[in-house]
């Protein structure tokens, strides 16, 4: 494999990681602050993608669609939080899993009811089509945009949490819920806000990825599983852990898919190697998770240790 191809695959891994980070950061934020396991996070990703495709179809502007996708998911997040999630904070994790699982079913069927069960059309805007040359590597412009958006979101979250008053309350909420309530902070508004931010990030990820992949019912669940792997690896509740975990998963998965089949070709015939290699590659991130948990049972960067 040439150096250019290796670099391109590395970029692909980073881009995949950034996409996972957008999902995982919301998930881990919601868990860290509210102690809530939200299985419906993937559904918010789907809602974002559908709203984005719909608005882009009407207005013809992908940028408006992107904004609407993130806002739509945030609004859906607020509705869900007020109606259902709010009642779950004091409950057991298994109750939360059951209730948010029900939300997956309701949101999927609801989306199919509103938009139909056929995949929607959403495409990359023409300015971002095509590729540019970075040294010896030719790389699609749109994927570079995704990387940039991910870096900006990471930076934004860092500033929000470490430098603003709301961030201070979020950190305080993570450490001691009763105390921050006793100090006069309206905890339920804070929770709704955090949930909306997480939902908006999921909606943004869904919109960005929807243009690249396909917008269809059930698109969120495979991503949700990967996002859980990311936060378990990174340490549950930690944004920094989510960032590192997402990069690890993205790069390991991408390079595994490329390298393993060619590795097996050294001593197997090509079609058997392709089949064995790709089967093993799809297990790789779960092996990674198992190894990391064996060494560091709380993940790489456990929150409030």
């Amino acid at each position, binding site marked *: 494999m*040439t150096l*250019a*191809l290796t670099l*391109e*695959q590395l970029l*692909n891994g980073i*881009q*995949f990681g950034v996409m996972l980070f957008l999902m995982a950061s919301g998930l881990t934020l919601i868990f860290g602050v509210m102690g809530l*396991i939200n*299985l419906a996070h*993937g559904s918010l990703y789907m809602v974002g993608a559908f709203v984005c495709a719909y608005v882009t179809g009407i207005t013809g502007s992908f940028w408006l669609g992107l904004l609407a996708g993130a806002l739509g998911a945030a609004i859906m997040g607020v509705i869900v939080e007020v109606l259902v999630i709010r009642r779950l904070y004091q409950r057991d*994790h*298994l109750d939360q*899993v059951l209730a948010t*699982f029900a939300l*997956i*079913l309701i949101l*999927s*069927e609801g989306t*199919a009811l509103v938009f139909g*069960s*056929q*995949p*929607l*059309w959403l*495409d990359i805007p023409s300015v971002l*089509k095509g*590729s540019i040359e970075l040294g010896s590597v030719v790389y*699609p*412009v749109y994927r570079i945009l995704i990387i940039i958006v991910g870096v900006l979101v990471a930076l934004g979250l860092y500033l929000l949490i470490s430098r603003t008053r709301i961030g201070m309350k979020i950190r305080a909420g993570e450490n001691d819920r009763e105390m921050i309530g006793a100090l006069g902070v309206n905890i339920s508004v804070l929770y709704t806000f955090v949930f909306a931010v997480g939902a908006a990030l999921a909606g943004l990820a869904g919109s960005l990825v929807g*243009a*690249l*992949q*396909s*917008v*269809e*019912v*059930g*698109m969120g*669940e*495979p991503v949700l*599983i990967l996002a*859980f792997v990311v936060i*378990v690896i990174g340490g*549950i509740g930690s944004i920094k852990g989510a960032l590192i975990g997402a990069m690890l998963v993205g790069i390991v998965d*991408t390079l595994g*898919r*490329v390298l393993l*089949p060619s590795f097996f070709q050294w001593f197997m015939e*090509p*079609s058997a190697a*392709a089949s064995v290699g*790709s*089967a093993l590659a*799809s297990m790789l991130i779960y092996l990674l998770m198992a190894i990391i*948990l064996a060494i560091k*049972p*709380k*993940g790489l960067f*456990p929150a409030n240790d």
Partner: protein
Amino acid sequence: MKKIVIGVVVTAAIVASVAALVMKGGGYKLTDVLNESPTKIGMITTLSGGGSHLGIDVRDGFMLATEMANANLEVIIRDDARKPDIAKSLANELIQKDKVDILTGIIWSNLAMAVVPPTVRGGTFYLSPNAGPSALAGKACHENYFNVAWQNNNLHEAMGHFMKAEGLQKPFILAPNYPAGTDALTGFKSRFGKAEGEIFTKLGQKDYAAEIAQIRASNADSVFFFLPGGMGIAFMKQYASSGIELPVFGPAFSFDEIILGAVGNSAIGVKNTSQWAYDLDNPANEKFVKAFRAKYDRTPTLYASQGYDTANLILSAIKKASPSDKDAFRSALESADFDSVRGSFKFGSNHHPIQNIYVREVVAGNGKKPTNKLVGVAISDLQDAYVSQCAL
């Protein structure tokens, strides 16, 4: 505490993955009673969840034919939600409780393998409007089983043949790592020979950056892929913006009219193989496409044509014999005495079609959606490779 949480999270992830599978259940019933003591047909097909547009089109094509013929049929339609266990229990219910004469409708090969063998052994006729697993064409063929669509390998074989005839030498081929995917690449290579590069992707994979980079770095002169449903939509969009100019080929499954609507103009120029095209020039097809558009306000896909042909085959056989007279009805089906929208149509000894496979090209449509245009014949009178293994 943290250990428990990790346990719960892992459980949650498993539950979520099951969620994707358990998502849809239920079904509904549509009875169409026109006269007394009609022939009863059970249709088990996929009407909800991923890939439901295939089942919906098979159903709509089938019902259109029965309505146009104003036939004395009762069709009981059930939704299998793409799950083998649901399909199997629906089949038992239709055969034992509703006592149907004929069963049809299944889209997916894994569901067909669960339902078809016990059904036909029990003496009920099964006519497949879509799935054509190799086992049912070869060793496990049965006198009561008819496939009206194609054997699974057919469209891929035809594309291998066509690309070779076009003078292409180094195709890069990819398919998901599951039985129909390996069959696809086997079928392709059986006619083409060795490929320049070969990749099996994860089933359900949506990001193809790594594969596209490998295609770019290879010496390939063309790309052949079999990625049904949402996978194909994702691949085509990403391939189009990658800047690679190699021509793309594939079976019709990734380029039906509904998928083209979601892919958009990225697919323009792609050649695909199909046993049918909506612009195929014959009177039966003209009548079908016109009636389908008038009734459902969309262009039919190949799945709709398969449903329509299946219904017309049944209707032609009912005219000759009653399904209760099994031997007479079977030979009426074998004679395939109906006007297929594919033009010429006949069964081989294993009850699978011997038919032309055509090449279509995706061109810009008059709306924002691109569409397929018939450009030629890939291979004439193709018979499946498994017929010699069938004892019939």
